[in-house]
């Protein structure tokens, strides 16, 4: 393997235990300033509610141990800061550090959502500018920054759609969802009180117009469309799709997860989309942080504006900003205290850094995806051959002949120093390899990745067992997920002895 690897892997062999296992009574990591008021008698103040023994088994460690513990844990993680993270539809791009700096500024991080609006003009201006930028990017008329993540944005979008239909006298019953859609789409539709009807994609992986025409009627509230699709392919007939829906009074919802292929190039509002969400933790660079937080703003056409969640940001005379709670037709609140302000700040910092040049990021993202596609075509099966945008979906059909599947290839990629791509999604491609490099990858990194994939394809031919039993070089190898699901152990308990010692 040595002559094929051009990049060193990095896996430490620390076998750090749990923080509770390092704990010993009397150790402290944090001191408070002395109490400057009379000490209370907790028993007198709290009576029977007093938790006399405190929190049992809470850790007791020193500051250096906290630093070492979490530093060691961090070294077990792959991250964008280390190298390419080719996860499809996740848009694992560089998380600019200036975003972290500005989100932590005193006067930004410290503000209470209930402080007087006249003392929050800085926050409100930030929100207003972000709104304007996102409206410019999407080509929409109105926007809410309240949803905490993409899935919550989807729910907000569907609630807006429901409110719109309700006002017109018929809330309708169904939402149409392509079979290539992300799982949050059908899950969300159900929470919004709609039935889900799946639409099969055609042979090109696109929405089948004939099938759509047949299915759209006055019971259909909306179609939830991802564009580009989860195959990374632009839905060419999106204006026709919008037309078919609008003719029957239905609306077009766009899942904006793949906005990284469109920003600066085209605007969903001009394509006939009525309402859409954005994932700020994808296209707009806010960090994934191991699984969140995110933010899922929802942008819409004017017709849906009356139903916006409260409060709505308004600009008053003299350039003062205010929060308007007096919105009779609002769908209400989807989250307390407004949106994830800290995430919104980071997204605005990203947009300001690029300005109109944001188009270049999109162009580079699409260039990278096509470059990788070109190099790996023929080596990996390409089930849908229409042009790719920011991501490309291969299948494991060729490697399957030797019993090697997409999960095996993904695990072997770890030995080459990369995080796997997205396996087993979208559902319409059995054995999928969904690869999205983003614009943050240099030609060098793309070449490393291509080399690694070519090497694994060769291994799948010559030494398939090596691939099927990967990864080989990590601290932890394939984990027993069956045992974890049959008899879940979801917390540490004091009687557990330290197990799984250094190997």
């Amino acid at each position, binding site marked *: 393997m040595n002559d094929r690897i051009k990049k060193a892997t990095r896996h430490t062999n620390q076998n750090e235990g749990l923080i509770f296992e390092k704990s010993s009574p009397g150790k402290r990591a944090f001191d408070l300033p002395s109490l400057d008021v009379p000490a209370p008698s907790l028993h007198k103040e709290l009576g029977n509610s007093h938790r006399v023994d405190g929190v049992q088994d809470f850790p007791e460690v020193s500051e250096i141990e906290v630093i070492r513990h979490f530093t060691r844990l961090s070294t077990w993680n792959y991250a964008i800061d280390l190298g390419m993270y080719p996860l499809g539809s996740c848009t694992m791009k560089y998380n600019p550090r200036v975003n972290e700096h500005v989100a932590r500024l005193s006067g930004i991080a410290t503000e209470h959502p209930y402080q007087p609006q006249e003392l929050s003009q800085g926050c409100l201006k930030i929100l207003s500018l972000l709104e304007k930028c996102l409206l410019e990017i999407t080509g929409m008329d109105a926007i809410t920054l309240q949803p905490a993540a993409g899935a919550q944005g989807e729910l907000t979008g569907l609630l807006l759609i429901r409110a719109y239909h309700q006002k017109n006298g018929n809330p309708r019953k169904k939402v149409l969802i392509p079979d290539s859609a992300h799982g949050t789409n059908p899950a969300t539709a159900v929470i919004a009180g709609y039935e889900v009807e799946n639409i099969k994609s055609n042979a090109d992986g696109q929405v089948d117009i004939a099938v759509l025409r047949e299915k759209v009627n006055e019971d259909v509230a909306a179609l939830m469309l991802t564009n580009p699709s989860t195959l990374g392919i632009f839905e060419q007939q999106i204006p026709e799709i919008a037309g078919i829906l609008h003719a029957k009074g239905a609306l077009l919802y766009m899942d904006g997860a793949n906005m990284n292929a469109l920003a600066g190039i085209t605007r969903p509002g001009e394509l006939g989309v009525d309402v859409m969400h954005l994932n700020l933790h994808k296209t707009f660079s806010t960090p994934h942080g191991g699984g969140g937080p995110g933010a899922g703003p929802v942008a819409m056409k004017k017709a849906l504006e009356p139903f916006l969640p409260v409060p709505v940001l308004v600009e008053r005379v003299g350039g003062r900003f205010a929060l308007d709670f007096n919105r009779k037709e609002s769908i209400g609140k989807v989250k307390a205290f407004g949106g994830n302000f800290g995430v919104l700040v980071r997204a605005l910092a990203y947009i300001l850094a690029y300005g109109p040049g944001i188009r270049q990021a999109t162009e580079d993202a699409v260039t990278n995806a096509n470059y990788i596609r070109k190099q790996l075509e023929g080596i990996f099966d390409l089930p849908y051959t229409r042009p790719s945008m920011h991501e490309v979906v291969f299948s494991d059909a060729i490697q399957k002949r030797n019993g090697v599947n997409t999960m095996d290839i993904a695990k072997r990629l770890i030995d080459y120093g990369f995080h796997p791509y997205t396996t087993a999604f979208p559902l319409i491609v059995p054995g999928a390899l969904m690869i999205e490099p983003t614009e943050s990858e240099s030609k060098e990194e793309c070449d490393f990745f291509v080399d690694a994939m070519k090497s694994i394809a060769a291994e799948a031919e010559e030494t398939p067992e090596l691939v099927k039993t990967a990864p080989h070089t990590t601290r932890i190898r394939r984990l027993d*997920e*069956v045992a974890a*699901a*049959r008899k879940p152990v979801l917390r540490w308990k004091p009687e557990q002895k330290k197990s799984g010692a250094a190997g």
Partner: protein
Amino acid sequence: MSYPTQFRYTKDHEWIDATGDLATIGITDYAQHELGDVVFVELPAAGTALTTGKTFASVESVKAVSEIYAPANGQVIEANAALPSKPESINTDPHGAGWLVKVKLSNPAELNELMDAKAYEDYIEEKKKEASA
């Protein structure tokens, strides 16, 4: 594994073993193999009505959930009480200890619509060919 000749089989890979109007239902060896290691089973309570083609139970592996469809109309008499603590029985003995429910059939003649062992074996041969094509 050979498919018991006294069972009948559905296209969704359930088997049903009937004597008169009493029957036992489970999933086939092919199904458990496709599903992988079973981690959890959701079974209906006694008395639940079964409607042909509608789901009445689900079997979960780590990565997937399989809905189980009623092969015939009837009523659940007993769910396999040993399964919740030993879901792996479905993998190790799908035609025996891995049974899901015992039922009282509304109309035993409905089973004539289902495949016999030979027809089922041919059916899964076809499926295997399709998968490797």
